[in-house]
């Protein structure tokens, strides 16, 4: 895998040098798109931590919205720095994740049922945000109170490069967490649980503990992503950050890229954002909805023909072409 490692190092070096490449007048725009890709890939990766073990959550919008709104409202009303507000957001989200995950694993709510319960949770958060319109701004959303100048305390910067590097670090952090989980005992345990809970429990795996653990990890990272996104856009809205729409969007990007591989969520997110931006530039405002129409079609086609996602399927193909004997031996 040393070739892969070299490619990875080269990619990171290229991304680190990104803001200094000569892009002319396009620079601000390219940076903006890249920040979005970093943040949403991070969120997608957080979702995939659960999704790959057959814990399909259709309610990650709940965690995203909780994270974004907690930090934003604490800053707007109490002037609490988003660094601490972010911690509060993660703690709150983790508590909610436990409240959801504990009964779910205690009563073996899995598969369809788990998806529908999480979907309900996502809608509850979205509707609560809308209902508490006096201080959340309701469905109009709320803007982050401006700090007036560049401020590390307020996590607000005029220069997009700061957010670019922050996004890059966040994204790498997400990949690191993914790798840690991938190489841990927890992965084997979770895979066993995903296959057959009763059998897993019978060989001594603490099913409830592992499930809650992975859910809390996934939800907390999603909340971090929500805080980061809110700080960058400096505006939060219940429909873009909570509820079924954004939850499905996260799932969709991950499935498109492939949820069983390290870079799958990133590839999927980059593709969906690139497609949306491309269609927006080509068609302008004439073809509103076209990008999502194509997403939807692609999602259906992918589920039918390439269930491992673009990146997953391509990687399998490359691996098969490169070392067929090793693969044949592994199969035998």
């Amino acid at each position, binding site marked *: 895998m040393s070739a892969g490692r070299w490619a990875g190092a080269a990619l990171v070096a290229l991304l680190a040098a990104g803001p200094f490449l000569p892009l002319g007048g396009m620079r601000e725009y390219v940076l903006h798109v890249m920040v979005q890709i970093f943040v949403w890939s991070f969120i997608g990766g957080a979702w995939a931590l659960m999704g790959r073990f057959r814990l399909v959550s*259709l309610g990650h919008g709940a965690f995203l919205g909780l994270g974004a709104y907690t930090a934003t409202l604490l800053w707007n009303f109490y002037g609490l720095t988003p660094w601490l507000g972010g911690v509060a957001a993660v703690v709150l989200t983790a508590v909610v994740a436990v409240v959801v995950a504990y009964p779910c694993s205690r009563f073996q709510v899995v598969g369809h049922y788990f*998806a*529908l319960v999480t979907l309900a949770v996502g809608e509850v958060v979205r*509707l609560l945000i809308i*209902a508490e319109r006096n201080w959340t701004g309701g469905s109009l959303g709320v803007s982050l109170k401006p700090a007036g100048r560049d401020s590390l305390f307020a996590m607000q910067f005029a220069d997009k490069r700061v957010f670019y590097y922050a996004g890059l670090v966040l994204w790498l952090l997400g990949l690191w967490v993914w790798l840690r989980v991938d190489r841990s005992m927890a992965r084997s345990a979770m895979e066993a649980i995903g296959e057959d809970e009763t059998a897993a429990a019978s060989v001594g795996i603490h099913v409830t503990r592992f499930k809650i653990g992975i859910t809390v990890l996934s939800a907390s990272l999603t909340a971090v992503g929500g805080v980061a996104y809110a700080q960058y856009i400096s505006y939060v809205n219940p429909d873009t950050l909570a509820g079924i729409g954004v939850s*499905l969007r996260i799932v969709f990007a991950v499935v498109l890229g492939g949820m069983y591989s390290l870079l799958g969520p990133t590839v999927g997110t980059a593709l969906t954002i690139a497609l949306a931006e491309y269609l927006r530039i080509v068609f302008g405002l004439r073809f509103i909805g076209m990008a999502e*129409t194509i997403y*939807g079609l692609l999602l259906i086609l992918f589920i039918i023909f390439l269930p491992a996602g673009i990146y997953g399927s391509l990687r399998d193909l490359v691996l098969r072409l490169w070392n067929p004997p090793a693969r044949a031996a592994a199969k035998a």
Partner: protein
Amino acid sequence: MIDPIFLAEAAINGIMLGGILALLALGLNLIFGVIDIVWIAYVDLVMVCMYVLYFLVQVYGWPFWLGALATVAFGAVLGVGVHLLIISPILASPPVNQLLATGGLLFFLQSFATFLWTTDHKSVRFALPSWELGGIFFPATRLIPFAISIVAVIGLYVFLTRTYMGTAIRAVSQDREAMALMGASPQRIYLVTSAVGGLMAGLAGALLTFQYSVHPFFGNQFGPLTFMICVLGGLGNMVGAFVASFVMSEIISVAGVVWSTEMGYVIAFVVFIVMMFVRPAGILTRRQ
């Protein structure tokens, strides 16, 4: 303090809403119970049917009853189409993938509707009377859909219990493998089930047109609610879904008047989540 007359009106409105929710929930539950796949996009199919009816009546000037019949037929065709194009290739896939494929359909329908028809609300105009009884109003736009949906629910019940095909459908939902061994073709039964499910979607669309204007994100309003009713009532359990529809619609309607519309939905969803935990045996009995 809220005037009791408002509460009574809210309760009655809840019953009326429950009739239509029951129609939605039974259609989805039938598919869920027989084919074992959640059509996440089910209410978005209803949305498409509502657009069809809008165009037939409001744009092309068909009489309403004819447009409604055509919409119901269109719904059945839509159901068969969804089954043939999307569901049947992934019948053997893991449940997650099946869920996501219909999620893709949801994306597709909502955004294609946005693309074709913009996000403007479109409604079919009615001039129907309203009756008053003891200070409570009974508008025909609520009574007629309620009456028709109850008749349709009874019709579905008769179809499932009194006809050969209905019996076969119920048999498949009980044991797929055994039914195939008895010589019944599951494929054909799946097709009929999808057609009936789509037909219910078309009918629900036609009835919802009485009270609601249609827009591309109409499905988000009723979709999550419909899944929850199905799960609350028990998968494939028609009576359960029927009762659950009225429980949920009463909560939404009454809490909506006492508190606020959003809080009505929040309370209904919280009740759903809690019910999933406190009554797992009643709700989860059909899970493998």
